[in-house]
C-alpha cells in the first residue's frame, strides 16, 4: 500500500524565544516492510543544524530557532510504500544489545499496579498469543480516551488515571512485557485510519522481541498488529527517545502546539 503523508507541527509562544533547540525524529527509514519513496522535511523560522543516526538507527535532525521568533513550524511530506507482514518486523540488528530493551525507564518503571496487571496475565506455552492477550488486557484496563490528563504520564501514572491514549497504552504494555522479561520498545509513526484523511496526531505502538520471530509489533490501542497502513518512523526504549519533537528553550514563554496530519492512500 502506498501512503501519502503530510505532517505539520507548529509551536506558538506568547513571547519571543531567545534560544531554543529541537531534536526531530521525523524521518522514516526504508526497511523490509516499508520503502520510503520520497520524504521532505522543512522548517520555518528555524535552522537545521545537523543530523545524525542515534543508537536505535533513528535519523535525528537538530534544529535551532531563529533568535527571537515566537512561532516555528516543522513540515514533513512524503510517500511510503508499505507491505503487510502481520506485524513481524524481523531480526534484531544494530549494536543495541537486546538486554537494554528489558531496562525499565522512568516512563516504564513497574509500580504495584503494573505488577498486578502483569501478574494477571495467564501464561501459556505460546509467547505470541500471550502478548496479544497482554495487549487486550492493557486496553481493557485502560480504555482509549483522548481526554488527556497531562502530556507525559508514566505507565504507573496512566494506570492510576484509568484511561489513556496510544502513548500510555504503549508504555503500560512495554512496562508489563519487560516485567515479564521480554525485550520491548516504543515505536512512533503514522497510521492511516480507514475512514478519514485528517488524523488527530501521530501514532504510537510497541514492539516485543519474541524468540524465533524477532521483533513483533503490537498496536494496543487498536487491538491488532501493524499492517500496511502503518509507517514506522522512530523506535526507542520509551516515548522520550522516540518522540517526533523534543526540545529545550531559554526564556519563560509558554507554548501552544498545533498538529496537522494527513495520511491517505495513493493509487500506484
Amino acid at each position, binding site marked *: 500500500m502506498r501512503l501519502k503523508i503530510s505532517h505539520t507541527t507548529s509551536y506558538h509562544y506568547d513571547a519571543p524565544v531567545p*534560544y531554543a*533547540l529541537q*531534536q526531530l525524529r521525523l524521518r522514516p527509514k526504508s526497511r523490509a516492510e516499508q520503502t520510503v519513496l520520497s520524504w521532505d522535511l522543512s522548517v520555518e523560522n528555524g535552522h537545521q*543544524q*545537523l*543530523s*545524525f*543516526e*542515534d*543508537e536505535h538507527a533513528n535519523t*535525528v535532525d*537538530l534544529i*535551532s530557532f531563529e533568535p527571537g521568533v515566537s512561532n516555528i513550524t516543522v513540515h514533513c511530506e512524503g510517500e511510503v510504500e508499505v507491505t503487510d507482514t502481520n506485524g513481524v518486523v524481523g531480526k534484531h540488528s*544494530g*549494536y*543495541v*544489545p537486546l*538486554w*537494554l530493551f*528489558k*531496562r525499565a525507564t522512568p516512563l516504564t518503571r513497574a509500580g504495584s499496579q503494573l505488577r498486578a496487571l502483569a501478574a494477571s496475565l495467564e501464561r501459556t506455552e505460546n509467547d505470541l498469543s500471550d502478548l496479544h492477550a497482554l495487549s487486550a488486557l492493557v486496553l481493557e484496563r485502560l480504555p482509549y480516551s483522548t481526554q488527556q490528563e497531562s502530556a507525559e504520564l508514566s505507565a504507573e501514572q496512566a494506570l492510576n488515571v484509568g484511561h489513556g491514549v496510544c502513548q500510555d497504552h504503549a508504555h503500560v504494555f512495554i512496562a508489563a512485557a519487560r516485567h515479564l522479561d521480554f525485550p520491548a520498545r516504543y515505536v512512533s509513526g503514522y497510521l492511516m485510519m480507514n475512514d478519514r484523511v485528517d488524523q488527530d496526531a501521530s501514532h504510537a505502538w510497541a514492539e516485543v522481541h519474541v524468540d524465533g520471530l524477532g521483533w513483533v509489533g503490537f498496536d494496543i490501542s487498536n487491538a491488532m498488529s501493524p499492517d500496511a497502513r502503518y509507517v514506522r518512523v522512530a523506535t526507542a*526504549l520509551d516515548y522520550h527517545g522516540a518522540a517526533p519533537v*523534543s*526540545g*529545550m528553550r531559554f526564556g519563560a514563554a509558554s507554548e501552544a502546539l498545533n498538529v496537522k496530519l494527513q495520511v491517505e492512500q495513493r493509487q500506484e
Partner: protein
Amino acid sequence: MTETRQMFDEMYGFSDTAREPYANYADWIALEEFANLKRKSAQAEKLFRLTGITFNVYGVEEETERLIPFDLVPRIIAAKEWQTLSRGIEQRVRAINAFLHDIYHRQEILKAGRVPVEMIAQNEAFLPQMIGVSPPGNIYTHIVGTDLVRTGENEFFVLEDNARTPSGVSYMLENRETMLHMFPELFNRNKVRSVSQYPRSLRRSLAACRPTCSSDHPVVAVLTPGIFNSAYYEHAFLADQMGVELVEGHDLRVVDGRVAMRTTRGYQAIDVLYRRVDDEFLDPLNFNPDSMLGVPGLMDVYRAGGITIANAPGTGIADDKAIYSYMPEIVEFYTGEKPILKNVPTHRCSEPDALAYVLDNLAELVVKEVHGSGGYGMLVGPTASKKEIAAFREKLKARPDNYIAQPTLSLSTVPILTKAGLAPRHVDLRPFALASPNGVEIIPGGLTRVALKKGSLVVNSSQGGGTKDTWVLED
C-alpha cells in the same frame, strides 16, 4: 629509628638505611637543620596561598575553601621502578579504551563470558547514547589517573582507574614548582625528570583527537562547572597553562552544526572540549534536563562528528569499582598479555558468598561504594569503631551490590615533617596518562597523596590528606 619497620617505607624500605633512589636525598636531609626545614615548610604554605591553589571540601560548611597541606619530603621513584609502572599503566589505558569501544559496539567480552552481562546491563554508568559512537582514534578516555599503592619493594597494586575526569594534576605541577623554588640545590644533586611539559603534552594530545571537520590547528577549550566546583582552580590553571579558553556551559551555543563559544569577533567553533563536567550535567537536552552547567545539543554535535569530548561520555563504565575487579580479564582479553600491574583482590558484595565473607570480616576489610569517590562512604575496618562497623553492616546488607571490599593493604610510607621531626605516613600515587591516536604518554611523576594522620590509610584530600612532590629519577 631503631624499631623494626612493619611497613615498607619508600625512603628506608624495611631497614634503617636509605634505599638507593633516596640515598642522595637522605644524605642531604641529614645535614639540614630542623628549624630551617620548618621555616621552608611555612614558606611553601605561603607560596600556595599566593598562587591561590585551594580545594573545596564538600560537607564542611564553614570551610568551603582550604589549602591541601603540602609536605616537603618528596616521594622518589627509581628509573627502573618507573619503567615497570609506566609500561603497566600504558597497557591498562590501551585495554580500557579497547574495552570502552567494545562495550559500546559488539560487546565481544560479554559474549565471550569474560565479564558477566549484568555488570554492564545493571550499571548506571553505561550510557545508551554512546552505543555505536566511535570517537577519533577510538579514544574514549583521553586523560587517565591511575591510583597505585605499594606494599613492598616489588609490590605495586592498582587501586583504581580514574577514567572519567581525574583531577589533581595541578598539584603535581605546583608541587614541583614549589620544590624547585625552595630547594634548587636538590635538583642539582638529583636528576629528576621534568613534569612541567604536562600542559603542552595535554594540549598536543587533545589536538591529536580532533574531529575530521577540524582544521590542522584545532580549537581546544576547557569546560568547567564554574567557580563553585571543588576543582575550579585546576580547570582555570590548565586552561591558562595550555593557552586555551576556559568556558562554562552558558558561554556555548550550537552554531552551524558545531559547538561554538562567544568571542569578541562572534562565535568560534570548538574542536576539542576538555570537559570537567560530569556526564549527567553535560547536556540538558540529552541528559538531566535540569542541569544549568551543560550545553544543550552538545551530545548531538558530538554524535554528528562535530566535536571531540574528552573524556568521552560513558567512560565511567570502565572505572567503577565493580568493573575494576575484572580488570585482569579485561587487560588479557584486549591486549593478549598478562597484566603488568596487579589488582587488589576484590570481593564483589553482589555475590552471596563474597557478601557472607565480607560481613564476617568487616573489621579487617576496606569496603567501598561501587560508584563512590573522594574517600566518601567507605569503611576502613581496622580503624573503624564497633559502632561504625555495625552501622556499615546494615548499609551493606540493604544494598550489597552497591559495595566491594578489599583486604586492608599496608600502604607504603614516606616521611613527613611533623612538629616532632620526620615521621612516616602512608601514601598512594596517581600518575597521569594521556591517550591519543598517536599513543599513550605518561608524565614521569604524578600526584603523591599522603595521609597526615598517624596510622591513617585514607589519603584523599577531602578526608584531610596532603600531597608531596613526586620525583622520577633519570637513569
